[in-house]
């Protein structure tokens, strides 16, 4: 067998395994983006592997047991709302009205999202807001 063929074979094996890793990785760990409305209107629990939800922390709904630690709140997109439970410390930037992203599973029995990951998007305070117009 000449070297070119060998290189081709080994390269194909490498590319094939990487492709397999990527495809199976997406299949097993991929999380679908959902909106709160989509989730609230579902009749059945969505994909068991979990999904990713973007929304806002509904004002006045934060209950935080620091000793556990366990964080509970309602997440809304302005139309619908769902309950979220997260076992972990409250992130620094977490507060009423903040944009948050949660990943986790949804149990239809208690209609609660059990979050395994909670990310608070940086507050928009650091963006151009309320400074008014430029001088022309």
């Amino acid at each position, binding site marked *: 067998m000449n*070297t*070119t063929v*060998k*290189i081709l074979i*080994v*390269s194909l094996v*490498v*590319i094939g395994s*990487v492709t397999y*890793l*990527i495809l*199976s*990785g*997406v299949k*097993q*760990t*991929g*999380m*679908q*983006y959902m909106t709160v409305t989509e989730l609230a209107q579902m009749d059945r629990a969505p994909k068991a592997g979990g999904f*990713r939800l*973007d929304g806002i922390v509904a004002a006045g709904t934060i209950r935080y047991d*620091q*000793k556990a*630690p366990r964080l509970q709140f309602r997440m809304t997109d302005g139309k619908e709302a769902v309950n979220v439970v997260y076992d972990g*410390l*409250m992130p*620094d*930037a977490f*507060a009423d009205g903040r944009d948050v*992203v949660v*990943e986790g599973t949804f149990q239809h029995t208690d209609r609660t999202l059990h979050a395994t*990951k909670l*990310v608070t*998007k*940086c*507050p928009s*305070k*650091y*963006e*151009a807001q309320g*400074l*008014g*117009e*430029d*001088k*022309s």
Partner: protein
Amino acid sequence: MSEIGRLAILMAFLCAVWSVGSIAWGLRAGLAGPLRSGRNALWAVCGLTLVAVIILVRALMAHDFTYRYVAEHTSLDLAPLYSAASLWAGQEGSLLLWLLILSTYGAAFLWLYRKRLDPFYDAVAMVVASVAIFFTYLLAFICSPFRILANPPADGQGLNPLLQDPGMMIHPPILYTGYVGFIIPFAFGIAVLLMNRTGTRWIEEVRRWTLFSWMFLGFGILLGARWAYIELGWGGYWGWDPVENASLMPWLVGTAFLHSVMIEQRRGMLKTWNVALIVLTFELSIFGTFLTRSGVLTSVHSFAESSIGAWFMAFIIGSGTLATALILYRKALLESENRLDAIVSREGSFLFNNVLFVALTFATFLGTTFPVLSEAVTGSKISVSAPFFNRVNVPIGLALLLLTGAGPILSWKRATASVLQRNFIIPTVAGLVATLLSLPLGVRGIYPIVTVFGSAFVLATVVMEFARGLQARKDVAASRGAMAIIDLVTKNKRRYGGYIIHVGVVMIFVGVLGSTVFQKEAHEPLRTGQSMKIGDYTLTLKGTEQKMERSAALTRAVVDVSQNGKSFGESRPSKAMYFKSQQPMTEVALHQTPGEDLYLILGGVNDDGTVTLQAYINPLVSLIWAGGLVMLFGTIFTLSDRMRLRREEKEAA
């Protein structure tokens, strides 16, 4: 003052345009005058950018809130150094810093090559200037840092507390020095294609420029990891965040290039591939800036969302297409001089090293952009996060670790069975012994075991290579002991510098293994006087205290830390409440030892007076930082080698 800043940027734009036009004309007509004029214009871009930076930094430090940028990113209670560092806190300032570093690279290039009157180098300068056109255009017409407010506020909005950290002051400029530095290899590559340049000197030059940027990028990535570890307070240092990935990708492709370029120098092979890697590294650097600054993906870094994303996309697609077209047009120039003789050879191992590095980059790229891609293809947005990257990238990374060991002990062209036997027995035995020794320590599972085996294998090959070099030299020179080693490595800096870098890589692998597999976590609410245990540490709460600082109020828990009954002092994990943002910030208390880090977080003071503490034990994290320093040292050592450059010179003459 802001008018001067605006004017400086506008003139920098015009100078960049002039530089490109003038050099193009000079190259075409073969005239020295336009070439000189074009070079001078590139110097002017650098000077004018510096003027703009000085004006903006002055405004930041003087808290001149008539500037929109100053009002957005600073406040009166901000310390002067952080005010100055706010230059790169937002999008406009970051772009200005980009341009400053870009034009400084251009100026440094012109200075270093001032005695070479070869139009090829003017073509390189022209490519640098054409990239400067893009950035000066953005800064002059799309997002100016010199916007003035009609009604300036009395105080600014303040700097994001996350960014108020010494790491924040140096991480971005160092990272940018790495990112932007790939402009010079890119410019060389394009200039070679444009000028139909033959010869090999430029390859060594490109290698050195790439190594320089690669060093800064790698160091910047590690500083970012360290910043995340200390500042973000989640016990880890790497989360496969889009922005981390963005900086990793050009580093990976750059690493691939640094390896495959050796094949080109030695055997005249892989020329097209190498130019393609240079171009890809540069495009990924731009893509990284785009990801950081466009907010197209959710990330802790994307505090600015704006419309410059489309411009960056256009630039990447445009320059990428042009470069590809040039490569195809100059196919003959990039013809390979040799063929691969055998797979089991140094060349073969480098080839697979390249395939794997590119695969790693591809998987990272795919994972990072997956939400956008899946939405475009299937209509539903699917995202992947850390588990995906760990699943895909860890095995590829381990394959690379094994190649790190195998590559250097395979001979060029063709490794015979006897060479294989001679070179592989000792490292394999070392790997197996290390694996056996690690089993009682609790190393389980295929990946940890491969990491231990591979690390020991690589270290054994490095020791063997040093020993072999010493043996060979012993016959020649009579120097002994430490002197002999110094003598050996300084005679072939590139080779031994490379081995030193490999040792650093192994240290990082082992550190990552230790801190992921053996991490311990514990949390508990404590009353004053109560204690909790984690590992062999006992943490006793002695009380809480309040402290006022310049821009924040601190709540601190005073914790007595003892290990196996032996106290080693107090630890003060805290929460800072920043006045400006009314946002709490966790401040980690870290006890670092070579073996393991004790990482303490204050959860908060509870209503019933108890204090919630969260503690992690992160074994071997110090090895990651130390490995980074070893890599840095190895790279500087390699860069100090000018022998090859001189040899190329001689051959050219």
